[in-house]
């Protein structure tokens, strides 16, 4: 007998196929925006701000050389002095979520905790993307609508 100790969480986090009523539904990793700007701890805020704002973003994820999330620069931190180093300006250790969490659970959690955005990372902390609450809520709404329409269609048949 063998013990897969890391379990279902490890399997789903790796994006491997699954079966069941939730299988195939969108997850945090599917909806997270992969084009979020990133910066390094030793960069100056001036250069980072320019890069972030020119892309139309109001957030930047601070990562190390292995792409592990170290912190976040939100609007407030992006207002820091241009000469400040990212390491000193960032908000360290943001809450992160794993890519396999179903999107409806993310939408509910983000709404309940008033989280406008959250980095999505692998179990070893590497950045996958950033999940915006608006995106999570929109996709959840679309899912509910599709399920409702499917149910109506089935009832009519």
């Amino acid at each position, binding site marked *: 007998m*063998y013990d897969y100790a890391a379990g*279902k*969480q490890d399997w789903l986090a790796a994006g*491997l196929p*699954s*079966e069941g009523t939730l299988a195939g539904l969108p997850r945090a990793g599917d909806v997270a925006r992969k084009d979020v700007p990133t910066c390094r701890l030793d960069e100056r805020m001036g250069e980072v701000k320019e890069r972030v704002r020119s892309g139309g973003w109001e957030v930047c994820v601070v990562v190390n050389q292995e792409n592990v999330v170290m912190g976040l620069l939100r609007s407030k931190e992006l207002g820091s002095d241009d000469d400040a180093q990212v390491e000193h300006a960032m908000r360290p250790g943001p809450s992160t979520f794993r890519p396999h969490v179903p999107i409806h659970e993310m939408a509910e959690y983000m709404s309940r905790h008033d989280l406008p955005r959250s980095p999505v990372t692998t179990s070893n902390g590497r950045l996958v993307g950033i999940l915006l609450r608006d995106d999570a809520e929109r996709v959840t709404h679309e899912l509910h609508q599709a399920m409702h329409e499917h149910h109506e269609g089935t009832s009519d048949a």
Partner: protein
Amino acid sequence: MPREIDRVEVQRLMEAGAQVVEVLPPAEFEEEHLPGAISLPLRRIESQARDRLDATKPVIVYCFDSA
């Protein structure tokens, strides 16, 4: 004593015909489980394992995580 294995070995054993057993409650199994897994919740494992599992094939058990 079961031998602890990782995801890669799970995939290899699955391809070789191993039986995969989820020991979580049935509601969690219904929501999502590994492909081809059998639901055998912990409280039923002793009474049902003999009837539901093939003793000639390897068995992999799993729950949600290692916690």
